[in-house]
């Protein structure tokens, strides 16, 4: 048997993984959900046919979306996670004993249910007593919050489909309102490399800059995402991700991470010139 999963990264570029078994296929109210056993990347979750998470490289994304803000402000206690149905972001957060509350808002309960069953590697900590799961629209949830969270992590799908509302000005404005006066927002920022991804990234970044006094972008290399070059937006009302990093304090926590370390933390904010140009470009 020779079965391959293919995602079109652009109309002219394809990315394929050899499939050993199609473990699950279902259609939720919002999207098509599939889990595949791949030869190289272990289990693969796709939504509407696009890669969301694989067992082999999920650690890069989840390390970087969680530990960068947590090392910047170790006294973060109350967190809102939007999206993140695979559970990987919550898993990393639960490593911090100092965190008191994690509210996770995922629009599609079926994604969470499927991940609990098929991808326990990421979904394993969703039952942590500090975690509250809300199955609703993230934009609606955050609209009703004010001055409540130390950190908001936007771990969304791409800016088309159910995640569309999470790349909008109204969403980032409502996040600003929902954060405390020293709050931090970290946003899954898409890729700078292909136009299909860099344009939404530029728009999202521009909108975040309008609300937050401190904004930076950092990067990671994720093999199964389009181009492999992925960005995260760091926005904050008070903390600077480099100047306020207390590397010793974080290292003394003794957390085991596979990708993140405090040297990489600083280095990840050093961006290639073409990315800098995109971020400075007013579209």
């Amino acid at each position, binding site marked *: 048997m020779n079965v391959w999963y293919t995602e079109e990264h652009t109309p002219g570029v394809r990315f394929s993984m050899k499939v050993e078994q199609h473990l699950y296929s279902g259609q939720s109210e919002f999207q098509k959900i599939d889990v595949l056993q791949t030869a190289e990347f272990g289990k693969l979750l796709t939504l509407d046919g696009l890669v969301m998470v694989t067992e082999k490289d999920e650690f890069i994304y989840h390390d970087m979306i969680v530990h960068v803000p947590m090392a910047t402000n170790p006294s973060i206690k109350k967190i809102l996670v939007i999206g993140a149905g695979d559970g990987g972001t919550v898993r990393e957060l639960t490593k911090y004993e100092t965190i008191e509350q994690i509210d996770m808002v995922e629009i599609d309960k079926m994604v969470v249910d499927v991940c609990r069953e098929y991808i326990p590697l990421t979904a394993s900590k969703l039952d942590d007593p500090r975690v509250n799961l809300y199955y609703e629209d993230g934009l609606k949830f955050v609209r009703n919050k004010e001055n409540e969270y130390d950190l908001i992590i936007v771990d969304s799908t791409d800016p088309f489909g159910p995640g569309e*509302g999470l790349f909008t*000005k*109204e969403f980032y404005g409502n996040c600003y309102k929902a954060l405390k006066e020293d709050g931090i927002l970290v946003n899954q920022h898409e890729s700078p490399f292909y136009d299909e991804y860099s344009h939404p990234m530029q728009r999202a970044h521009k909108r975040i800059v309008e609300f937050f006094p401190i904004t930076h972008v950092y990067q990671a290399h994720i093999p199964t995402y389009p181009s492999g070059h992925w960005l995260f937006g760091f926005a904050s009302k008070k903390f600077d991700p480099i100047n306020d990093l207390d590397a010793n304090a974080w290292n003394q926590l003794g957390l085991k991470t596979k990708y993140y370390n405090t040297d990489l933390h600083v280095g990840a904010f050093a961006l290639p010139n073409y990315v800098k140009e995109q971020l400075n470009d007013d579209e």
Partner: protein
Amino acid sequence: MTELSQQSAPIVEALERYKSMRVVPFDVPGHKRGRGNKALVDFLGEQCLTVDVNSMKPLDNLTHPVSVIRQAEELAAQAFGAKHAFFMVNGTTSAVQAMVMTACKAGEKIILPRNVHRSAINALIISGAVPVYVNPGVNNELGIPLGMSLKDVEQAILDNPDAKAILINNPTYYGICSNLQAITTLAHAHDMLVLVDEAHGTHFYFGDDLPLSAMAAGADMAAVSMHKSGGSLTQSSFLLINNEVSEGYTRQIINLTQTTSGSYLLLSSLDISRRNLALHGKEIFQKVAEMAQYTRDEINKIGGYYAFSKELLNGDTVYDYDVTKLSVHTLEIGLAGVEVYDILRDEYDIQIEFGDIGNLLAYLSVGDRRLDIERLISALAEIKRRYAKDKSGLFDHEYIKPQVVYTPQDAFYADKEGLPITNSIGRISSEFVMCYPPGIPILAPGERITGEILSYIEYSKEKGCFLTGTEDRDIQQIKVVKES
């Protein structure tokens, strides 16, 4: 011939048959199924261009329908409960004009509320009919014109027993309905025709728990914008007739101004949309009403905004309310409706139907997605957080009682002179001035220009309303009737 049932779409089926015959076109349109205009095909799609065809025997003729258009009109009449339905391709504007011109000849009177769309007053310019205006009720808190009070209509009828017809908005742009049944009964008792502008009321014919439709009330004619809530292409519309109104004479009136090259894109969109509403309209509008109610509740939770609904009912000037409409009063957050309208578009990439002095209207339909509705609500919450200010200094009403001196036709064709609008107080306008949308004239030809009207126009400009109507593009100059 296909069997006539609401499952059928005779024009669409004829176009399909015609396509499959692969007829060689030596007739217009000259793009020849798109082959002669590649850029247009690339832009609109091949499917679209292959049915952009001319009237011909297998496809009938809109100016004198005898086969498939006739059948489609009969099906539409059946679906709307009318004696006959005309397919209109010059917009609901032409349907409103056809109603007025069918009912009234030059010099004959028509009773109508002043908050009509400009198309109705345009019909008076063309026909020479004489308006008898009934001032609509006004809600002082919201500042919006309402429906007509039955008592005021009765007075107008008693004062003008020679009037030929009465025109009613069902509903207004904001979704407000007059007591259509009582007005119809009253008008008929005085031998007047009842014409209904249902540009915003297509769905009344299909949904449950929606206001009464014109045909159900026994009215004589109705102009129905299928392209609004009915889902057909822009510019396509129905004119419905009932009772003793002559189909043949109405057709002649329509043909005075309607194109002889009726677009089959528009005609087929009417046919398909009628079929869709006849078969699924009830569920569709149930869903829209539910979405609208959810959105109203969420907007009202934000505070400051007031998304109004049936609590306004007062048994008279707000006899009924169209719950599929999403009208929101904005003045309490210190912003004019048009300011919120502009911010939504410029900053949040959200286009709503219109904003005026005190309110905005977002048009909801079966095409809306829940996530887009969440965006609208959240953007409104953000606009309040970021822009709310003191409401003092805001104009709070948008209806000014007109002083009618000449008929619209007399004023429009009178000897006239141009004046800077600021120097025109006391003169009689020969032009319209209106914000578009909603297209309800602030000033119509034949009306006296007052200080109140000018400050309203000035204020609307300042707040960013798109003003139209005068020959002068910048609305700095106005044509007034020359004084002898």
